[in-house]
């Protein structure tokens, strides 16, 4: 298994969310975590990134334990619900933010690859407040993908978008993810989103993460 979550416990604001829960993903798989808002899905993503701590259990990526690593050492990317684009940086600076350790040539190569992939080349020098909602989301995606994360997490990726745009953007996202063979876990409250993109769908039930078998029907 690529991602392994073993027997974890955690709670948020004194409320238990998971108890002895386990979960796993294959490389390149796209998984949706479905559930109503407030069910703890987003907190689960934060646990995987290391932004929230678990009281028990272990996390592995590629058989390497990451339970105690701080967020910046986990190689897990995340697109936040509000995108969290740095308002004082241009699109280009935002995308290059996570790859400053690369050599200059590689950095620019990666930047252009991402711009092309997300169709943002002409927005390169714009600032976040000059972008539309869909564009901002693509920048956030490009920024996370540029760092070639081992796992990409998306927090409610479509909640800030107009309904008319949604269908197109879902397809786009699916294409981008597949083209890079990215392993991706995203949370949503909308079963349509889950069906459209995910290879499999999970939900949180009785403090465990359970697969919904017939989600794709």
């Amino acid at each position: 298994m690529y991602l392994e979550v073993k027997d974890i416990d955690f709670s948020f604001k004194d409320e238990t969310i998971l108890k002895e829960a386990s979960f796993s993903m294959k490389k390149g798989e796209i998984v949706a975590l479905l559930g109503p808002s407030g069910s703890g899905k987003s907190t689960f993503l934060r646990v995987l990134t290391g932004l929230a701590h678990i009281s028990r259990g272990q996390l592995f990526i590629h058989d390497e334990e990451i339970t105690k690593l701080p967020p910046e050492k986990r190689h897990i990317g995340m697109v936040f619900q509000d995108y969290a684009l740095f308002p004082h940086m241009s699109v280009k600076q935002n995308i290059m933010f996570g790859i400053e350790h690369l050599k200059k040539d590689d950095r620019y190569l990666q930047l252009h690859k991402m711009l092309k992939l997300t169709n943002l080349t002409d927005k390169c020098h714009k600032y976040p407040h000059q972008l539309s909602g869909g564009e901002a989301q693509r920048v956030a995606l490009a920024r996370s993908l540029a760092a070639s994360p081992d796992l990409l997490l998306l927090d409610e990726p479509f909640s800030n978008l107009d309904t008319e745009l949604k269908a197109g953007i879902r397809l786009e996202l699916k294409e981008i993810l597949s083209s890079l063979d990215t392993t991706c876990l995203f949370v949503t409250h909308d079963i349509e989103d889950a069906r459209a993109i995910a290879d499999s769908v999970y939900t949180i039930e009785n403090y465990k993460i359970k697969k919904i078998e017939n989600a794709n029907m």
Partner: protein
Amino acid sequence: MRLRQHLHSFSIVSIIVFVLVLVVFLQLFAGFTGEASDAWIHIKEYLLFDYIKNSFFLVLFTALFSAVFGFVGAYLVTFYEFPFRKFFGWAMILPLAVPSYIAAYIYGDMFSYTGIVSRLLRGIGIVSQIDVMSLFGASMIFALTLYPYVFMTVRSSLNKQSNEIYESARLLKVSKSKIWRKILLPLSRPALVAGVLLVVLETLNDYGVVKYFNVRVFSFAIFDAWFRLGDVGAAIRLSGVMLIFVFVIVVIERVLRRNKVYYTLQGRKRLRKALSTKAKVFGYMALGFPLMFGFIIPVIYLSYYSLLTYSKTLDMELLYVTVNTLSISVVATLITLFIALFVANLDRFTTSKFFKRMINFITLGYAIPGAVLAVLVSLFFIGMDRDLVPLYQLFGVDKTLVLTRSLAMLSFAYILRFLTLAFNNIESTYQKIGPSYTEASYTLGQGKLKTLWSVDVPMLKDGLIFAFVIVFIDVVKELPLTLILRPTNYDTMATKVYQYASDEMIHEASLPSLLLVSVGVIMIYLITHRKLKKRVK
């Protein structure tokens, strides 16, 4: 290995600060262990009740006056449109540039027999004198010079409340007084209380005003016990009583504020109502009174006497004093902000109860009166110097007191004293931008320090500049710490003013006072007239 998870640059800096604060505090409590001295018994019998009573009323009156000045001002400039509204929007902050003790010298002089007010009164046949040098007068002076704290916090909270609430209340045919009682006051209460708390702590910390006016409150009593009765132990016990007093106030504030940060983001541009003619008269009076007495009159007084006395007071030394004041203040303020940034970051992300308590404790520094802090810091440094002698000898320094009475010691005291102020300002800015930008940076593989420099600091810029100015002005004005801890013959504007004043040369103190006030005015003008770059839609 949970420990390693908790150890990083933010927590390490915070822990170091915590340990330093703790050591300084412990020296205070060590003073309690000894037998009660005669002086302490004497104080308890004859004076303590008065100290508590006077402190209570001084705080009460000051809190009331400053709340009224600050709140009414903030309310008017937020919700109404009238000529000079924008001017009042920043001018109302100006009294912050006038140290309370300077205002006290000025009004004490103006209302004395030879002062202009008494002469004017005599001119129209009124012989009786108005006694400003009283508890009531002192609280008025504190309120006039400190109300901008209330004005600023309340205004920023009112700014966050949308017009819609008030419009819908009015559509529901709720009376004006009910809107005030049921909506405006409850919604602004946390900000009002926070602003008033700052005023109260500054009031309790003051030594200049209460000494000059002979108002017997705690800070006065601590000096009195220590110096007049010659009993450090009694002074330390009094400090302990005072800290309990302060602690109760701080806890009350925290309870009042708990979970009560309400604001609704403004939907659209605020439409300000015009004031009726009658209301205009009231409005200008409500804004004009504190501005007039808190700023304009003091500045006119200082300018007039600076002109009369400059031949005696304008010299090269004044230039050195200015350079001293500005450089030590800039350095101390920058370090304070830097540490506050680290502590605020720990506060944002830690889930550890220990760390939360630790931060609560660190930020108590603001509550220790300057005089007490000065004694504790100086004892701490002398102890440290004596321990470091072998190290000094290693470097060929044939002196014991190397750090004692150095600029490092003074800066250290400033940092301890003003860390809370910086921390509160930074924390509130962090709350405005939320945690996700910082978290995004972490998930992009950037470490804590890198994130701090390239994400947090640029995003916090406006808040940091504001915090810088607030702390800077306070450092420049600071008196008891500077007086006691400064290096040999290292004068700042504040100590210069104090020296002239304590030699009964109030008029000669005008020029350095005017300089001191100007520094504050320039800073306030700059932050209120900075063009804010709007990057958020």
